[in-house]
């Protein structure tokens, strides 16, 4: 209980880059802190008040002002660029990243893997493979934070946010909710368990449902009779959905929108908000009929409906 740890575990690809940048800032900061504090102490002692000596009035020095404006400016631009580079890496998941869906609610994390397994407050991932989390909240804003991976992202109601990481070390790491979310905020915690790929495959196949997320989505799609309007035929009342995810959609009024998870979610819940060009706003809303988990299933299913050939 009383061991003192001064450095967090480092278990993702980005973690060591973040640590290097942190170290750089630490060195620069330490340099300026030591410089200023030393000067202050030396001056305070050397020029302490003595009856025989008077202060010397100095108005300033333009060369010094320029010097201590330009040097911090250059250093801070290096920091900005370096930090921005890491931010851009974190903002863009690799195309081959494995997708996992996360739903936050007061005060637990619900995780759904594409192959079917569901877990609560635990996330199993393979080591060495990029994993992308697609996240939403059922109530207030939460934040999915894994200190060992040096990454976090807010989890918002009514939209999807995403984050990605590539674990580099097997083990069990803290998962925290980092955005204050009410009474049980500090209990909205769990673990990310990083496993060897073969162990992970074993774990996945040991999942209870035996049915993948997309299969569950397809069943739901059929049960709700979505195909009667979105069957893919040119005469259908709704636009075709094959190859939709990731494509650019032209809306009534000429605007275009990228068909990401948030767009699809919105189009199911508020179909009249963004109507595809050439179609009538006749789709009824499914608000209140589908849970966040159901929506995830349908999205996972639609993602499997890729065009057999050519561009997505």
């Amino acid at each position, binding site marked *: 209980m009383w061991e003192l740890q001064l450095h967090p575990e480092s278990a993702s690809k980005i973690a060591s880059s973040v640590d290097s940048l*942190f170290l750089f800032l630490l060195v620069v900061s330490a340099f300026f802190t030591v410089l*200023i504090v030393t000067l202050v102490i030396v001056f305070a002692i050397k020029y302490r008040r003595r009856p025989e000596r008077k202060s010397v009035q100095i108005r300033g020095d333009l060369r010094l002002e320029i010097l201590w404006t330009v040097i911090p400016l250059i250093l801070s631009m290096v920091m900005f660029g370096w930090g921005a580079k890491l931010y851009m890496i974190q903002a863009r998941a690799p195309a081959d990243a494995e997708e996992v869906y996360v739903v936050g609610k007061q005060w637990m994390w619900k995780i759904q893997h594409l192959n079917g397994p569901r877990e609560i407050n635990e996330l199993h991932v393979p080591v060495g493979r990029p994993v992308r989390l697609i996240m939403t909240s059922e109530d*207030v804003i939460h934040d999915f934070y894994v200190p060992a991976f040096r990454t976090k992202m807010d989890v918002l109601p009514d939209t999807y946010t995403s984050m990605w990481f590539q674990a580099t070390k097997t083990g069990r790491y803290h998962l925290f909710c980092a955005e204050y979310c009410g*009474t049980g905020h500090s209990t909205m915690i769990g673990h990310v368990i990083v496993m060897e790929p073969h162990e992970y495959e074993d774990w996945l196949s040991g999942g209870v449902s035996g049915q993948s997320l997309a299969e569950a989505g397809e069943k739901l799609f059929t049960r709700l009779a979505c195909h009667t309007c979105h069957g893919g035929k040119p005469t259908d009342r709704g636009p075709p959905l094959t190859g939709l995810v990731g494509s650019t959609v032209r809306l009534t009024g000429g605007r275009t929108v990228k068909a990401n998870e948030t767009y699809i979610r919105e189009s199911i819940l508020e179909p009249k908000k963004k109507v595809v060009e050439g179609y009538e706003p006749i789709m009824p809303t499914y608000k209140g009929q589908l849970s966040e988990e159901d929506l995830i299933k349908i999205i996972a299913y639609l993602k499997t409906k890729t065009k057999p050939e050519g561009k997505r």
Partner: protein
Amino acid sequence: MTTITTAEGDAARDLPAVVVDPDENYLNTSYTVKSWLLTHDHKRVAILYLLGITLFFFLGGAAAVLMRLELLTPQADLTSHETYNKLFTLHGVIMVFFFIIPAVPGVLGNFLLPIMLGARDVAFPRLNLLGWYLFMIGGCFAIAAMVAGGVDTGWTFYTPYSTTYSNTHVIATALGAFISGFASVLTGLNFLVTTHRMRAPGMKWFRMPLFVWSMYGTAIIMVLGTPVISITILLLAAERVLGLGIFDPARGGDPVLFQHLFWFYSHPAVYIMILPAMGIISELLAAFSRKRIFGYGFVAFSSLSIAFLGFLVWGHHMFVSSQSVYAGLIFSLLSFFVAIPSAIKVFNWTATLYKGSISYDAPMLYALGFIGLFLIGGLTGVFLSTLGIDVHVHDTYFVVAHFHYIAVGGTVMAFLGGLHYWWPKITGRLYPEVWARVAALTVYLGFNLTFFPQFILGYMGMPRRYHVYPPEFQVLHVLSTAGASILGAGYLIPMVYFIWSLWYGKKAGPNPWNAKGLEWQTKSPPITRNFEETPIVTEEAYAYAD
């Protein structure tokens, strides 16, 4: 600025001769309660503010003590989740809206700005008094909300938690902040107009003390920024009370919009806290090294550029909020620009000491301590501006430590330093110097022990606003709590000797520090109209010759 000659010209000569009691001052003109509660004297309003903020400081401090005690162990032992959440909300709301923001402008700004400019009062004395009443009424709302059961949203009131999910007294608390916001606007307005219109003859812009420059920068933010938080609070109330869909997505609103509006004020509010502190430090360093501030013009303009840039960086609180990646890049870049004028100030302050004649009186100890703490606070702000690092440490104890280094290590240290420096002017009495030095060192050590471990906690991944936490964080939490008890003692010592000095302190005389500046050219305590004769300024600020 030393020379005061009798104002020449007909206007001065035609004034009726006033019989002046040589012992009369602003404190002993009348002792009635009414003379205080209806005063138009900026100095008495300043004393009223001092009473108000001291009350709120110890209230907010009590909440902090309870939190630090609770955090001694990883599990919950002292309070429930609900109570802990209400404690950190109370601490944040009270300390931000009712202590730090009004502290320096309300007390030292009100007392000193007119005297430093050679004016008889602020431009609108009645509005000044009204401001204090609004501040106290706002504070009463916050206290009433606490007594009625408290509020648990955090001082940031993030939606949709605050509008839809919290079952606590959100509206009463937010209204408290809303009402006291008007006090901020009135103070800012008064300072701007007073600085423009009421400078004594010869008080040119670049002869003004740097404290006035920094209050001027602060006043701009108060007048321009505060209305935005007022509007935001009204929108929050509209959603919570009337059910209008503004921020809650379940009603068609956008929760991130709230964060934009909230930080558009609350980031500049950080500069409302730190700019006045910077002004105090400039005064203290000049007085106790007997030197003109090095690079006066650069220090003055850095205050204005911080005030200006402060309005352009709110998005750096939202790097992981789902805000656009490109917005994140721009807010990060602009945040680095704020670091430059801050660095300029630190370098110029350090250079001011060079070849000075430095004494170690208590106010100077606070000023030197400020430089060290502000350095750490400012540099860790650079860490947080750096995108790749902020993603990791955002919403952790690293942020908590950073803003306490700025707001407590910076502003409270400077406020205490300023209070010690001007205490003889305000009360006419000297405090016991030895005790004051002991207190300054106690505060400095206690502060560092409280908050430095929190940087490490943050980098380790300890999220803020956690009532219970994993056991590996305990050692650092224990250190922090130990520091807090020292810090608490450090704050109580001055309370005792300041009150003691009112009766038993030595008489200060007009200028105990032998300092420059118009405030030292009048009596201690000053007479109600500040100066017997309107001073005529013939020198720049800090015209030290020895």
